[in-house]
């Protein structure tokens, strides 16, 4: 009966789509996955055989909403019917997206993407390994850029498929092979742009782990700038494009040669400058020593000179001192008061004689002049007139000398001065006549 049912069910439900929530997920050693698919009202047992399970890119998780496609069958041993799932998709997000997130989370938890795991890229690689398709656009871009920047570079290509079933494994093996080769300094792994599906190999765990395990620094260059793969997270350096990866791994040879030339030039210049500087110092030192010798000689000469000058000065001072003493002596002897006294004594008698004579003369002159004046006085004196019989009339008591008769009145008393004695008279008559 079960057999009949099974045949009937398998015929009727050979291709069904079911939507529901995963629960009771079990994955025993066989690799098959057993679970229950349920919705609010019903449930059904489900099985994913190993071959289908391996194709899953994401992990089935409890409570995950999925859409499953498969066929119904009956498990005769238990008499249960179940769905044998061929493909299962997470509901809502894409399967790839989910797988990406799940793997990223798991590897991150393991520390595969840790920053401290990352190795620095060599500054001057001699050999660059390239893991990519030998026919794609990526290899052309990479080779062109590498050759342009560093024309003498040794490039070792590990050709791989970059999409498809076996791409992940090939990429991982190529990485290993380049590591084993021994003389590779840095590896570029990548491919040109494509869909999320096309780039999927670079999200595969085997690739991510191979990149993380590489002893040689790895630069990832997958697709375009916007494409981010797990390979990028694991790589030591993520380049946005294959061309950018090539630029990242080698400097421009011409610039390095120029830099080398400049450094060499500067080394020479510095050495030259240093030598010139030391030479200057040496010259200055020699000059210093010479100077000291000259200064010593000079000083000796000047000392001699000064001694000479001192000696002559001293001589001069002595001579002039002596002379001055002589002079002073001469002067002194000239000024001897005895001489003056002697001289004075000699002149005194002469003077007194002259004085005497002079005095006599002066006295005689005076006597003569006095006599003359006296004679003159005599002639002028009114008394002399009186002597000749004239008198002088004067009013009394006014003493006014009378000149005219009219000046007096009758009866007035007058005084008449004679040459000898005085007469007092009274006016008796006045005769006023005009002079004839």
């Amino acid at each position, binding site marked *: 009966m079960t057999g009949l049912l099974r045949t009937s069910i398998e015929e009727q439900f050979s291709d069904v789509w079911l939507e529901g929530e995963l629960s009771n997920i079990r994955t025993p050693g066989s690799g098959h996955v057993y679970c229950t698919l349920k919705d609010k009202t019903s449930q059904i047992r489900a099985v994913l055989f190993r071959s289908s399970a391996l194709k899953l890119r994401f992990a089935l998780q409890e409570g995950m909403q999925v859409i499953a496609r498969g066929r119904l069958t009956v498990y005769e041993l238990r008499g249960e019917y179940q769905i044998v799932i061929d493909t299962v998709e997470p509901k809502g997000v894409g399967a790839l997206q989910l797988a990406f997130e799940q793997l990223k989370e798991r590897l991150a938890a393991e520390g595969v993407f840790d920053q401290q795991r990352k190795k620095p890229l060599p500054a001057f690689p001699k050999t660059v*390994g390239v893991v990519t398709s030998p026919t794609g656009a990526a290899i052309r871009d990479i080779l062109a850029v590498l050759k342009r920047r560093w024309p003498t570079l*040794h490039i070792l290509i*590990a050709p791989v*498929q970059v999409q498809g079933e076996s791409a992940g494994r*090939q990429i991982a093996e190529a990485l290993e092979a380049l590591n084993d080769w021994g*003389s590779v300094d840095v590896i570029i792994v990548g491919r040109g742009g494509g869909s999320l599906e096309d780039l999927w190999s670079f999200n595969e765990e085997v690739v991510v782990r191979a990149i993380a395990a590489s002893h040689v620094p790895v630069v990832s260059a997958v697709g375009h700038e916007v494409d981010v793969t797990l390979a990028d997270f694991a790589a030591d350096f993520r380049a946005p494009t294959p061309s950018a990866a090539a630029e990242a791994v080698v400097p421009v040879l011409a610039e390095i040669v120029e830099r080398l030339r400049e450094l*060499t030039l500067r080394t020479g210049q510095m*050495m030259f400058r*240093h030598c010139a500087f030391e030479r200057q110092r040496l010259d200055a030192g020699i000059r210093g020593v010479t100077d000291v010798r000259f200064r010593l000689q000079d000083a000796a000469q000047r000392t001699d000179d000064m001694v000479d000058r001192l000696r002559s000065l001293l001589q001069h001072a002595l001579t002039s001192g002596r002379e001055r003493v002589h002079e002073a002596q001469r002067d002194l002897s000239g000024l001897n008061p005895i001489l003056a006294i002697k001289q004075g004594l000699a002149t005194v008698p002469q003077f007194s004689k002259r004085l005497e004579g002079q005095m006599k003369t002066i006295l005689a002159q005076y006597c003569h002049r006095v006599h003359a004046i006296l004679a003159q006085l005599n002639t002028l004196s009114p008394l002399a007139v009186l002597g000749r019989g004239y008198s002088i009339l004067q009013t009394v008591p006014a003493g006014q000398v009378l000149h005219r008769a009219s000046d007096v009145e009758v009866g007035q008393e007058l005084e008449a001065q004679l040459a000898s004695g005085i007469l007092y008279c009274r006016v008796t008559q006045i005769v006023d006549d005009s002079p004839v």
Partner: protein
Amino acid sequence: MATVKFEQAMARLEAIVGELEKSDLPLDESLRIFEEGIRLSKNCLKILEEAEHKVEVLVQDKNGKKRIHAFSSGDESDEPSS
């Protein structure tokens, strides 16, 4: 490895120029590093000049042996079959 030598040589050369530019070294010491610098720069140039552009392909044959051969851009035939 030549690359390490070159990198170290360049770094040392830069350091030497820096030392010389500080110019507080005694003359004999600066002469010594000057000679070293000149030797390094010659070596660096030699490394650069001696290198030769090679593009090769690394392949593994069926029994896992690795070998390399020259790469030519029409190398589709070398793509390993999956």
